């Protein structure tokens, strides 16, 4: 099974080093010598590193925003009593069930009317409101942070926001980290939304750029295609090698509630 998982990657890596003619003439597992040539051909059509940078900027900002504001919201829901709190919480949970495509057309129209099409705003700002993360963090903080800790800080004269930043955030950190991995992967792999709101090739995220690659001239040079795909895949594989333990644990944490 492990081999089956790897074969497509292996073919990709081997073919990335072979010239177009060599790929057309047959299949082999021996690497070729056209790596540099393929790289130059590919870079003359698209700048894959720009796609990387764009994806990275968006994903990092989305992860930070979603982490911070979800923690803020979860804390607000968990430790204050105010009118309409339960109704708001239930409404948020209901909206969590709604699939992303439902609002797609309205979202596009809204972005058009606000004049933020072809910018990163519609890709980044909505991360402030991530119901699932809020839900997860609220469940976490109600079990880990005892109200007496907050009381003690209040008596010591700390302001409400200071309490949040110095007591609640550190306690929530493991849960925020878990959710951040999800958020980051989700944002990195998001395809339909950037496809709809972005028009300028230099602003494309990596997934959109990969789709663009297929429709471009470079698609005729298979070696360069393989190399382009390899470049988009290998850094993720390397990062995963270091982080796999945390990623795997966070998947289990997200699905099993005990």
């Amino acid at each position: 099974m492990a081999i089956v998982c790897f074969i497509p990657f292996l073919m990709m890596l081997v073919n990335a080093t072979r010239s177009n003619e060599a790929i057309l003439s047959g299949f082999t597992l021996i690497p070729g010598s056209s790596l540099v040539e393929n790289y130059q051909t590919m870079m003359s059509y698209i700048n894959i590193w720009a796609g990387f940078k764009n994806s990275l900027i968006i994903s990092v900002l989305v992860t930070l925003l979603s982490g911070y504001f979800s923690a803020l919201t979860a804390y607000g829901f968990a430790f204050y009593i105010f009118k309409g709190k339960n109704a708001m919480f239930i409404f948020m949970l209901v909206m969590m069930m709604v699939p992303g495509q439902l609002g797609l057309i309205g979202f596009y129209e809204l972005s058009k009317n606000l004049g933020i099409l072809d910018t990163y705003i519609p890709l980044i700002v909505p991360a402030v409101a991530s119901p699932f993360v809020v839900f997860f963090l609220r469940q976490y903080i109600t079990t880990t942070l005892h109200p007496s800790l907050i009381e003690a800080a209040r008596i010591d004269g700390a302001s409400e926001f200071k309490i949040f930043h110095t007591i609640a955030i550190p306690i929530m950190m493991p849960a925020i980290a878990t959710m951040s991995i999800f958020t980051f992967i989700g944002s990195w792999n998001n395809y339909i939304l950037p496809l709809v709101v972005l028009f300028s090739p230099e602003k494309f995220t990596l997934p959109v750029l990969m789709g663009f690659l297929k429709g471009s001239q470079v698609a005729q040079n298979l070696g360069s295609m393989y190399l382009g795909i390899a470049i988009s895949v290998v850094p993720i594989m390397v990062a995963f090698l270091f982080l796999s333990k945390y990623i795997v644990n966070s998947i289990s944490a997200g699905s099993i509630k005990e």
Partner: protein
Amino acid sequence: MKNLNRYGYYFIAPFWIIFLVFSIYPVALTFYYSFTNYTGSGEAQIVGLANYKRLLTDTYFVEAFFNTWKIWGVNFALQIGLALILAMIFSDMRLKLKGIAFFRSIFYLPNLITISSVALLFGILLDWQHGSLNMMLLKLGVISDPINWLNEPTSAQLSVSLILTWMWFGHSFIVVMAGVSGISKDYYEAALIDGANRWQTFTKITIPLLKPILLYIMITSLIGGLQLFDLPMLLTDGIGSPDGSLNTMVLYLYNQAFKYNNYGYAAAVAYGLFVITLIFSAFIFKGMYGKERKQPRQV
């Protein structure tokens, strides 16, 4: 002591402002458009239920529905089957396999790769003239002529199902393993003493106790599966060929909205998709939990 509860509103305010603007409003706006003939420019005219009537008789949508369902069904059966078999092997007390962490990582790896890279990779691996898969099979003598995988409806759908299985079985495996590790070892020890074989242990202990987890995987996979878009879009340049067999519901929605500018109708497609998802999720819940309630309670 002064009342500090007004801070609750301050804390949740940013969330609600963004949530209302970027989540609730678009969903409501889409709902409004589904009753209009809006084309992306000019005024939207209200046409009542015309879009929904069209949806019910639209053969393309019905076809897209069955395509999505077929692709998801095959993929889910394979994915969960593989995940369970692997979980059975790895959790077997008699085999005591090592290196589970390593295998979990390897199996999960395909899921992490951007789906458009996956689509592109398989797009050229499956290419019938120059694709590595055909070349390898030819060399090994398995086939005598190259097979055009993506040009024949059944093999195209099967290809997408298999790619999805490749991407997702690792994820299911991890979730199933997490569930298995939550089952008390006592059950397995008792089974061992009673002389139960592997298959009995698996079907009589593991599967029943994993039911909530399996339900979770099924629901999340179904919701994801009904929204299948990226792979067919990229494998077929957005047209869903051959013979429309890779035309999924979301691809249809996307094309109606952003290719043909039928925003009103596309909005109705979106709500149709939503209702379908709700109905099937409800069916699964009922199917899994409904039977239990009918059984008499044991005292």
